[in-house]
């Protein structure tokens, strides 16, 4: 089985900051809006290096979105980031009309994604942002699996995409395992492990956990395919349909509500093209809570071990 080596734990928000910084070094048009949590979304590097292109707007997320729209209408490439709960939800109508209906190249960074945010608890754990962002017309939704990939995709989204983009990333340092020169394309999934017994389709931090689970499964003689869907919209239908046909079972993994989220996005493709039995692993219609990130990942059954058990039961007992 393909093996992946953790180069060392690193937070995906740091990757986001690096990606923005790199794009800003190439493009003068890149500007950043601050909403009073600049460092905790990884944008302090930009602010320090490009102070004249950094605009502090205070704790006023709705205004940030509109200001970003005005900047984009004037040829700038604005990046606005705050915790995903606020970036995507507090501002939803402003994103819908000022950004998406106007189809503007605004980059919205949703930080603190998922349960792994930890001790801050339910108010700060973004578990509904994928659902709300992916339903917006014109929006691209990106959810990279580690810091290296976050930097790559952030830079590429800023430089190459045209319309609105939502990029989702976490707070906790997590395994950084993809390579700088990986083959990657926005809108195309990556098959990380091959196998034909079942497919695990994961996004964000859970990609690493999916690989872990696949390793345990392999010890039991089960060959699980692992796919990283770093782009949730536009979704890579081809890789999903192929997996449905070749492996006949699909498990989705997300640090997000399973309703209307990532698993649902995969299911939309599966049921319309090649229905197979699916299992959605994620948060099941409840709020998060405080705890250490690893405690929460365990409690919500999102670690490699827990995923292995869930997948085994799904395979053997159809549960």
């Amino acid at each position, binding site marked *: 089985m393909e093996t992946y080596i953790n180069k060392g734990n690193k937070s995906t928000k740091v990757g986001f900051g690096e990606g923005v910084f790199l794009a800003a070094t190439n493009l003068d048009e890149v500007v950043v809006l601050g909403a009073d949590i600049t460092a905790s979304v990884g944008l302090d590097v930009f602010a320090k290096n490009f102070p004249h292109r950094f605009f502090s707007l205070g704790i006023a997320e709705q205004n940030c979105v509109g200001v970003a729209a005005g900047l984009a209408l004037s040829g700038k490439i604005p990046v606005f980031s705050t915790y995903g709960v606020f970036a995507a939800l507090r501002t939803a109508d402003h994103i819908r009309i*000022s950004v998406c209906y106007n189809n503007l190249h605004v980059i919205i960074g949703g930080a603190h994604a998922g349960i792994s945010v930890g001790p801050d608890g339910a108010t700060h754990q973004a578990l509904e942002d994928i659902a709300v962002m992916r339903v917006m017309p014109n929006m691209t939704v990106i959810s990279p699996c580690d810091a290296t990939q976050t930097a790559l995709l952030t830079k590429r989204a800023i430089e190459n995409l045209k319309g609105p983009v939502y990029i989702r990333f976490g707070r906790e340092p997590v395994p950084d395992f993809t390579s700088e020169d990986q083959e990657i394309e926005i809108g195309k999934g990556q098959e990380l492990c091959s196998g034909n017994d079942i497919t695990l389709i994961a996004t964000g931090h859970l990609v690493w956990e999916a690989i872990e689970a696949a390793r345990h499964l392999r010890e039991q003689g089960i060959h699980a395919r692992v796919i990283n869907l770093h782009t949730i919209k536009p979704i890579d239908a081809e890789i999903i349909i192929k997996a449905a046909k070749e492996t006949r079972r699909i498990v989705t993994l997300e640090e997000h509500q399973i309703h209307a989220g990532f698993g649902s996005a995969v299911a939309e493709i599966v049921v319309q093209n090649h229905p197979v039995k699916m299992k959605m692993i994620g948060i099941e219609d409840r709020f998060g809570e405080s705890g250490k990130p690893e405690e929460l990942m365990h409690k919500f059954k999102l670690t490699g071990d827990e995923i292995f058990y869930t997948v085994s039961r799904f395979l053997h007992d159809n549960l």
Partner: protein
Amino acid sequence: MTLNPITDSNSLKDISYEIRKDILRMLAEAGSGHTGGSLGLADVFTCLYFSAMNHQPENPSWEQRDRLILSIGHVAPVLYATLAHAGYFPKEELKTLRQLGSRLQGHPGRDHGLPGLELSAGSLGQGLSVAVGMALAAKLNRQTHRIYCILGDGELQEGSVWEAAMSAAHHHLDNIIAIVDRNQLQIDGKNSDVMEIEPLADKWKSFGWIVTECDGNNHSEVLDAINFCKKQENKPQLILAHTIMGKGVKEIENDYHWHGKVPSKQQAEDFILHLTK
């Protein structure tokens, strides 16, 4: 070529009169839409597009143009009629308002490609933020054009307007002139009954804006207010333009029921017969 500014009040009045006729006819033809606010703003729009603003109708994406951000998308008819009169597109097209396939969407939609339209809008409380973004970009680019933003008075009940107001002052955006359509009315009735917004001038001043007031249905007062704003530095400016909802049609003036009601085609012609300049 930039339009030659018209400063003569009588000529401006004539234009507003024609714009009002078009507003009534296009709304009657459409069978739905917002009559009151559109009529009330006809004089302000005439002053902007025929006198105050630097723009080129034959070159709508001219980089140095002044921008007009219409935050209250519901009064799209006054914007459309004014743009047509200024030469952005044929007046004939006004008849297509709100119809399938029209570039004149019920609320402005840039995706339909109408020349001169700067922003898709219709959700209240968002336009001033967009104006702030445009003003920041102009400052960054060392450009000297202005951003005009039209707000409703009821709209000021949206909290996000005040986020935007605070940020414009914080960043010293003296290239923004915001104009509030102060008609004292909104859908459910008088602003003061629905949700009091006074003391309005003091609110804006305390948010760091320069405030001036005018009769928004008097062309020379509107132009004086804009000229006053153009002389200011370091702070964004706001004009409280006191208007009459439904202005020009005596039967409907100051009646909030006409916020979102339209005349029948016959009624529109009767209104036009007695339309006051």
